[in-house]
């Protein structure tokens, strides 16, 4: 059996296209507090990605935890070159994350299709299209 591309259609929240290895989390992430902006490493005590770097990955998250300052930290990750290339979310992130992703040019797609969540694997290549609102396993 050959690998075939699978595309899930969702909702584009922040436009743009990016691709990278999936990093899949089961925890809600707070960009303020959970991430060291200089290295992109997850430092939050309660986060299941603790010790891993967000740099260049397609970050697959169930949710973000609210902080009004989240936008600045997402933008700072971009300034330091340690930002995820895209976000794939199960639910709509809060407005501050959307504003930070817009500034950092990190596309966001919200996918509610359960087949995505049951099959997405850490490390597999994902193409995220925030303009079309789709995620493709390539």
């Amino acid at each position, binding site marked *: 059996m050959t690998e075939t591309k699978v595309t899930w259609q969702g909702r584009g929240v922040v436009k743009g296209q990016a691709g990278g290895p999936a990093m899949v989390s089961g925890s809600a992430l707070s960009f303020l*507090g959970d991430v060291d902006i200089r290295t992109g490493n997850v430092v939050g005590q309660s986060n299941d990605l603790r010790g891993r770097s967000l740099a260049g990955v397609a970050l697959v998250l169930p949710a973000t935890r609210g902080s*009004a300052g989240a936008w600045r930290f997402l933008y700072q990750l971009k300034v330091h070159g340690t930002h995820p290339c895209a976000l794939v979310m199960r639910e709509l992130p809060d407005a501050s994350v959307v504003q930070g992703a817009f500034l950092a040019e990190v596309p966001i797609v919200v996918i509610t299709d359960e087949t995505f969540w049951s099959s997405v694997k850490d490390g597999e290549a994902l193409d995220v299209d925030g303009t079309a609102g789709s995620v493709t396993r390539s």
Partner: protein
Amino acid sequence: MRLSDYDKSLINGDEGDTARQAMEALVQLGEAFDAPDMVEVGYAHVHAGMAMYLDDVGLIEDLAVRGAKMKVPVSTNIANADMGNWQETGAPESLAKLQSRAEAAHRAMGSATSFTCTPYWAGHWPTFNMHIASIESGVTVFSNSVLGARANRDGFFAVYAGLTGRYPRFGLHLNENRRPTHHVRVRARARGTADFTALGYAIGRKVQNGIPVLSGLSRRPDLDELDALGVGMATSGGVAMFILPGVTPPWDEDTDIASLKLPDVDIDEDDIDGVYAEFCNGLETGFEFVHLGCPHASFEELKYYAELLKGRRIADGVQCWITTNRTVRQMARDQGLLVPIIAAGAKVISDTCPISCHFARTCSPDPSLGVEPPPIRTILVDSAKQAHYVRDMIQCPTLFTTGERAVESAVTGRFQPRLRPND
């Protein structure tokens, strides 16, 4: 999204390239949150441009250089250095100079350069039903809950609201999202701003992103206490609005809250005490820093601190800052209030505060600025908000007490904990 002719003209670039950029961003935000259209914004409290973050001042300078102009009244949020008085804070000149570039950029765009987390004490006082945008969560909660204006917890996009006078209609701009979610029954007596930050902090922790309607307060809090209450909630939770019957417009104070069948949350003396206790992990003697004025002190609070410090002297080895905004400091100077404060050895600092200045360890200033956070053993504060962020950003131990006892601590060099109301 339904866009007006004016909205479309902005997107067409009729009002310039920066207004086009701002409007395109606001449309994307609106589409993300299913906003039906744009509202007219009456005021925006916006990002200062922060010298403690790499390339952050550049975000503001870029707009100014491209000729951006604010379309509505705009005030600027707290910054990373006291731009007129940085020597007194021990900040490197390089940091103050960089911060001043953000000031120049804001002036070019027509912002009022207030550099404060309490712009209302500097005269920026939005009115009932006015749609506003605010980057500062304390301004958001005060505006929604005390003034009856309409604001979300915003980030950088408050600048875009300022540049266009527009904002997508979602969140707290809609009546349906301004209804209470929890009934908070206060069974504790709070007195003074420190207590109200602690009360708010205890409430925010329990209601998270909800909208609490409060009952049980023994009296109407004064303006400083109302400010403190909201700031506490916005710090521990994501509260953007509370409802205090008799204060919050247009809430009908005859409403039978029990009939709304909201989940009950009880707050008693132990909850308030617990917030103080949580932030009392520092050195009871040997603290070297006392901070008063979080959020930035009002004129009334400066009167209060001046009275407490009159004829006193800050203990050897202790530094005491009172933080406020430039406008209040000028009013206080004109009133003669700075004389007893300075005579006592305390400093009145504007534009910044301990957690916003070069003390913070979680920022990422340009290495060429040579910013080195000073070692601090313990900071003693009179605000739950400052305590929370000292822990997270300066990462040193705290002591938390009331304003009066904080001044007493600064003068005696020995921590004076809050007394419970019945002690």
